[in-house]
């Protein structure tokens, strides 16, 4: 009743090509932005402490949404499976650290973006095998990237400036007289920065996937031979997907260390994290931007809440809750794949379709 296309005619193709052709969608996005920019900073999430909301929920969810967007570009839009996401986040984090120590006065946001570019290049290099191999073989190739990079993060001491600890850590960084990163930075400041980057990156991603380049990825994904015969150059299409995806993943890695954790060592980038990000994409929905948000939020928040509620409200052991949340993730994956392989995003779409008809089912 309230959500429908009828009556909203487009007189120009340009209007139809806009990000949100439906007025209701525009309103919805505006409301979400207001919530994110105004309500959460002002009121937090009811019932949760502000520090917890920021540090354990909002900031990591936003960062992982960027990761998920990146992986979704590769897996959901270009159809190339990667289990190297964790390590590529590491590339972002370590290169950001190196850039920060080599140019201490450089603005940290620029550092983050540069580290995304470095990751894009590394991603392209490790994407090269995809030209020759596909499917399960590519999984193994990306695992090779994962394990090689993990090794490099340990063995190449230059990457962590020969620290005794072998890890990287952020220091206080200022921007416009405000400490934006490092131990003394305010959670709210970091929240706004991460949120703004997320909004920006979402907008860019949605632009690219609706245009020529995004279509070439989807062509490769849906039927690579036909794509090639129509004129898509596999080299360009696959490598640009690897690069663009790695750009996002690299940025999220840098953000994770310098706007959330504060420090990291190699295990923050290990293969288990790669699985977690894969889960975010699958549960959220392959090839869906909305899904990336849903997947990251769900996969991150549910275990945190399971642990927190289990501990404080029911007095369960941390041990039991940990195992319970591992099982929950596994079950969630299997159930989603069975019920709707396109994830929560498709379920949401179906709900929207129904909303168009609501309250009259015909």
């Amino acid at each position, binding site marked *: 009743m309230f959500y429908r296309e009828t009556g909203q005619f487009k007189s120009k193709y340009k209007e139809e090509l806009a990000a949100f052709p439906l007025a209701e969608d525009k309103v919805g996005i505006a409301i979400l932005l207001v919530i994110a920019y105004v309500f959460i900073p002002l009121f937090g999430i009811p019932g949760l402490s502000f520090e917890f909301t920021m540090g354990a929920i909002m900031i990591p969810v936003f960062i992982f949404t960027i990761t998920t967007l990146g992986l979704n570009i590769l897996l959901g839009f270009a159809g190339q499976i990667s289990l190297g996401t964790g390590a590529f986040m590491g590339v972002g984090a370590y290169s950001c650290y190196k850039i920060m120590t080599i140019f201490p006065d450089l603005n940290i946001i620029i550092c983050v973006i540069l580290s995304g570019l470095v990751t894009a290049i590394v991603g392209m290099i490790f994407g090269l095998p995809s030209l020759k191999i596909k499917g399960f073989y590519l999984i193994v190739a990306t695992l090779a990237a994962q394990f090689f990079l993990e090794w490099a993060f340990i063995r190449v001491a230059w990457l962590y400036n020969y620290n*005794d*600890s072998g890890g990287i850590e952020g220091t206080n960084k200022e921007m416009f007289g405000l400490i934006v990163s490092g131990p003394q930075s305010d959670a709210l400041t970091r929240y706004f920065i991460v949120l703004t980057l997320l909004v920006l990156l979402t907008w860019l991603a949605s632009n690219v996937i609706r245009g020529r380049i995004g279509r070439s990825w989807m062509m490769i994904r849906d039927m690579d031979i036909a794509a090639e015969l129509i004129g898509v150059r596999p080299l360009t299409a696959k490598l640009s997907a690897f690069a663009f995806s790695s750009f996002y993943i690299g940025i999220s890695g840098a953000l994770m260390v310098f706007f959330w*954790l504060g420090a990291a060592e190699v*295990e923050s980038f290990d293969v288990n994290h790669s699985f977690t990000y894969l889960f975010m994409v699958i549960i959220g929905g392959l090839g869906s931007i909305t899904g990336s948000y849903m997947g990251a939020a769900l996969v991150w928040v549910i275990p945190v809440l399971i642990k927190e*509620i289990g501990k404080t409200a029911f007095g369960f052991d941390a041990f039991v809750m940990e195992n319970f949340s591992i099982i929950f993730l596994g079950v969630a994956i299997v159930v989603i794949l069975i019920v709707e392989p396109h994830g929560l995003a498709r379920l949401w779409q179906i709900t929207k379709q129904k909303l168009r008809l609501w309250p009259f089912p015909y």
Partner: protein
Amino acid sequence: MKKLFIGAVMALGTAFSSVSLSFADELLVPNMTYRVGPYAANGTMMANGFTDYFLMLNERDGGIGGVKVKAEECETGYKAQVGVECYESYRGKNALVHTPNSTGITLQILQKAPEDEVPILTMGYGLSAAAKGETFPWAFNYPTSYWSQMTSILSYIESQGGLKGKKIGFLYLDVGYGREPIPVLEELGPKMGFETLYVPVAGKEMQNQSSHWLTIRKEKPDWVIMWGWGAMNPTAIKEAAKTRFPLDRFIGNWWSGAHVDTQALGSKAKGYLASSFTTTGTDFPAIQDMIKYVVKPGGSKTEMGMPGKVLYNRGMFNAVIIAEAIEVAQKMTGKKNVTGADVRLGLENIKLDEARLKELGLEGFTAPVIGSCADHENGGSIFVQQWDGSDWKRITGLIPPMTDVVQPLLTAAAEKYVSDKSGWTTQKCN
């Protein structure tokens, strides 16, 4: 539909509000444990000893200074990132002191401690340089640091036929923890005239060490020192036996010499050495009390055989230091409900001397721990224990660290650590 939605929101709201319920009159001591993951065997024992001690205090004495202690576990799986999440989840909850139980986690939260004003006690792990109290007001290394320990171990080897001209193999878990003592080896190698063979074991290869031991066989070191943890330890001992490396020339650090590492191997591990700073066995009144008040009645996850085991006792000792610091803090401030900042003072003024240890029911359990503002390490002595095929037996007296070697290294490392950190909080001690 709408009703359902409102219902759901309300249910969630109730759940949330229960999360944030805070309890008055309680001393919150979080403990980052790992009962899952590849290091679970060790983590479980540590966690049990730690938790049981506080449960015992609650049962026997009604807590500390009349306030019950809430020793709350946060499961990390020995993952640094999860550890940070645990840390974040305690913000604003008036946690008194953090126990990361992992060097990796310590390194990541070290910078945050001054901002949150909650001290970190890394008992026998963590960043060695944290021993410098002036540079690291919020971090404590009691009773001694990795670097001190390494010098003690080298002293022991020196006493067993000398180091000059020898080749020392250093087999270590390739994470922050395992790499910690490398600077000491690099410093002392030329000075004492030994050569070091570094054999890193990646976390993934922990249970697949045959090539590491072939390398050791190829290079023929006279001694092998191990900085191992979790499943790495038993695998290493087994491989050592397999390659016919003499086990009485194979010495683990204090995290590589526990019952869980050797028990399954039994007589195969006979002769293997390890350092320690806590005594095994249950012949201490404090441990007897824990068995009586907590373990026997089934008040915790501890099984009857666990108390007295190396890591159980060590986990308990970690709790003893914290309990003592809280008590000191209560006395110094006159408050019952102390804060993290108070406990930091308590830690600096801790005085676990022979007399106090006896009072606590731990006579002869360990070397005394005397805190101070400048020295957050205490430079404690260790002893060496040996596996006799069925139990760990202490075979040496206390071996002090080479303070003259370690102190300058610590100072330099502390300076290096803060050199690139603007706005780092330090303190002046007099």
